């Protein structure tokens, strides 16, 4: 009898739905998708190694250009010149656009990009299009990101000589859960399975924890705790984290972040150099796109130069007959971007406050991201932390991807004989999670910076007499009013027994597991008995789709306030 040519894998292994993630023996790779640059790293058995593309680049520009039928991204694409990215055919800055609706100010700030961003201001996803053979061809940020990820994956597969499926990606702190689903979707389109989405500064924190572990060689758990403030500012986002590290355990004390970065600085300066920029560029004509590309390149160049010198002379032709010729000094540049820097200060203050840490107790200040090169940013962070020197043991542009690669190895269940992977990140929730109650108020159930996994519950009650149904609308964010926050989903609880308002107890529980999956559990119990009246509901969030800007309004229009709920003041003293 001949040997079977192949072996059939048993059903339980192929379907593997309930199999834990670490059943995959392969090491997940770490990917840092930046607004402007992107990199890939992997644990090679003894250390983290950054992968290079065929042009020997460790950091690749994040863009995808649609020249003909086949799009090509910054991993493999060979640019004729810098201007090509700004010719309208390339989509970049997708990280600023992904998962945002067209009422978002960040989307509106993208209107001056060379490709087409068309917000209609109605709460749906904006139209995004690239110029292909003189036609604006619509695409989506997810699609663009997926094209890019496919290239990254191919690059990694060739170098590592194996199939890549599992990845750890870094994401900005301020990303809503809806945005995270968009990132996951892009990964799924590229055939990648997301093992973790790590807030960028927590990836840096993990690298920091590993470095501390290696330098101290202390016993597990003993040794002194070190507190680090991590400030990460790139082209699109600024994030701050405070971590307490000892024995390879990185405990995230607090996170804060905002969609503010080098792109805002660039826009401010462009508007300063060309005050009528918005109106000049509103119709996206061929010549305007060209001028805009030139302006972008010149402005970028000026900002880079201002990091090293105190003044820069700007002299270039817009191509349409007008010239810009002037000098810009650092003071003027800093004044122009005062609001950006103030925002950074605010994020640091908030993070210190939330972590309940005094600046005097911070052992190390870690400055990473492209904008950490800007003298004003450095001075601001160091000044606020009251010290002279920042932590110098890591490359500011590679720290996040290295941390992601470490997490990839740890989460894949890889252990290192030398103990370099005896690491653990205790994550915290970046944004508060709660529901709509007491009219239009946002009532947090899991506060921000709660340690994950987390589970919290809160009791609510009916707002009207004999109310039989109640609407649970779940939001994420920090605003006091629901409309300032991100809508994640909604569902209805039915079968509330008729009673005076304020009598039935509606229990709402939120659960975030270790893989950051959010579930909302709700049901009605009668006071005294604690027995559920009807079966509880368990809903995984987010459930909203791309039109989620409309949902809240539609709910209000349909139901008004008849399904409202109120917070229940529990008598705590027994």
């Amino acid at each position, binding site marked *: 009898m001949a040997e079977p040519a192949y072996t059939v894998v048993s059903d339980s292994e192929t379907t593997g*739905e*309930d199999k*834990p*993630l*670490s*059943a995959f023996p392969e090491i997940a790779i770490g990917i840092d998708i930046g607004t402007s640059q992107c990199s890939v790293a992997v644990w090679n058995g003894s250390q983290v190694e950054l992968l290079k593309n065929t042009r020997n680049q460790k950091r690749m520009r994040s863009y995808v250009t649609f020249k003909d039928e086949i799009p090509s991204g910054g991993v493999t694409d060979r640019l004729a010149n810098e201007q090509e990215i700004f010719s309208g055919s390339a989509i970049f800055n997708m990280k600023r656009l992904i998962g945002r609706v067209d009422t978002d100010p960040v989307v509106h700030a993208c209107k001056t990009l060379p490709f087409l961003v068309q917000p209609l201001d109605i709460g749906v996803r904006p139209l995004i299009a690239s110029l292909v053979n003189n036609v604006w061809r619509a695409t989506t940020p997810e699609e663009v990101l997926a094209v890019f990820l496919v290239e990254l994956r191919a690059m990694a597969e060739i170098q590592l000589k194996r199939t890549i499926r599992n990845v750890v990606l870094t994401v900005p702190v301020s990303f809503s859960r*809806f945005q995270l*689903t968009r990132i*996951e*979707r892009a990964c*799924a389109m590229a055939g990648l399975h*997301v093992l973790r989405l790590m807030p960028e500064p927590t990836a840096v924190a993990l690298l920091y924890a590993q470095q501390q572990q290696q330098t101290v060689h202390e016993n*597990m*758990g*003993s040794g002194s*705790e070190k507190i680090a403030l991590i400030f990460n500012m790139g082209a699109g986002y600024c994030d701050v984290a405070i971590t307490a590290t*000892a*024995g390879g*355990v990185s*405990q995230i004390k607090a996170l804060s972040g905002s969609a503010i970065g080098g792109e805002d600085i660039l826009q401010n300066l462009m508007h300063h150099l060309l005050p009528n920029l918005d109106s000049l560029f509103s119709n996206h004509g061929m010549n305007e796109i060209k001028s805009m590309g030139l302006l972008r390149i010149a402005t970028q160049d000026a900002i880079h130069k201002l990091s090293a010198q105190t003044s820069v002379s700007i002299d270039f032709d817009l191509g349409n007959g007008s010239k810009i010729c002037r000098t810009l000094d650092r003071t003027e540049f800093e004044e122009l971007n005062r609001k950006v820097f103030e925002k950074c200060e605010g994020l640091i203050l908030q993070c210190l406050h939330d972590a309940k840490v005094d600046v005097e107790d911070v052992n190390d200040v870690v400055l990473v991201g492209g904008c950490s090169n800007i003298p004003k940013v450095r001075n601001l962070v160091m000044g606020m932390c009251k010290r002279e020197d920042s932590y110098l043991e890591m490359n500011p542009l590679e720290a996040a991807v290295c941390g992601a690669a470490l997490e990839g190895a*740890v*989460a894949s*269940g890889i252990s290192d004989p030398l103990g370099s992977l*005896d690491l*653990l*990140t*205790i994550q915290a929730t970046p944004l508060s999670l709660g529901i709509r109650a007491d009219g239009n108020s946002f009532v947090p159930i899991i506060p921000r910076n709660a*340690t994950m*996994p*987390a*589970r*919290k*519950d809160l009791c609510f009650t009916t707002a009207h007499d004999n109310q039989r149904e109640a609407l649970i609308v779940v939001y994420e964010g920090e605003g006091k009013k629901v409309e300032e926050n991100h809508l994640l989903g909604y569902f209805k609880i039915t079968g509330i027994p008729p009673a005076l308002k304020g009598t039935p107890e509606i*229990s709402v*529980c939120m*659960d975030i*597991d*270790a*893989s950051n*999956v959010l*579930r909302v*559990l709700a*049901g009605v*119990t009668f006071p005294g*008995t*604690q*027995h*559920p009246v009807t*079966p*509880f509901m*368990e809903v995984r969030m*987010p*459930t*909203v*789709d791309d039109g989620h800007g409309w949902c809240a309004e539609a709910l209000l229009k349909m139901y008004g306030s008849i399904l409202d709920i109120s917070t229940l003041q529990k008598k*705590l*003293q*027994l």
Partner: protein
Amino acid sequence: MVAASSPRFLVPKIAVVNTPSPAPAFLRFRKFRFAAAYTSTERPRSPYVLSAPASLYEVLEIPMGATCHEIKIAYRRLARVCHPDVAAIDRKEKSADEFMTIHAAYSTLSDPEKRADYDRKLFRRQRPFSSSSATSAYTTAASSPIPRFSGHTRRNWETDQCW
């Protein structure tokens, strides 16, 4: 500082729920089984009795007089064992509950004010059923009939409704 020997704490079998701090409030939603050190000495559990360690100090496996430093060390040591990221594959689901219990204990005991508050309550609780009987009735009633999370461990984009 209240100094008492730990075996005394084993007497009441109910976890404190009426603390004003929000931390232990989630106890209502699950029966939890406790960590590594306790699994070997499994006690029989009836659905109406929480088989919790008697005090937060026991959760962290430290004496009542432990310093802040010792509390942190104990927390990290337990996190290295119980956190879902490092727990053995067959224990993933339980480990989330265990870790939340450990973290709740840590967050109460590492905050001097909350700890003092907790110590006072613990001291009161040792005098049998003076003020805690009402609490225990409430807790036991609340603990079990509410459905427990089934807790799928992985996100599955194929079935994700959110596209």
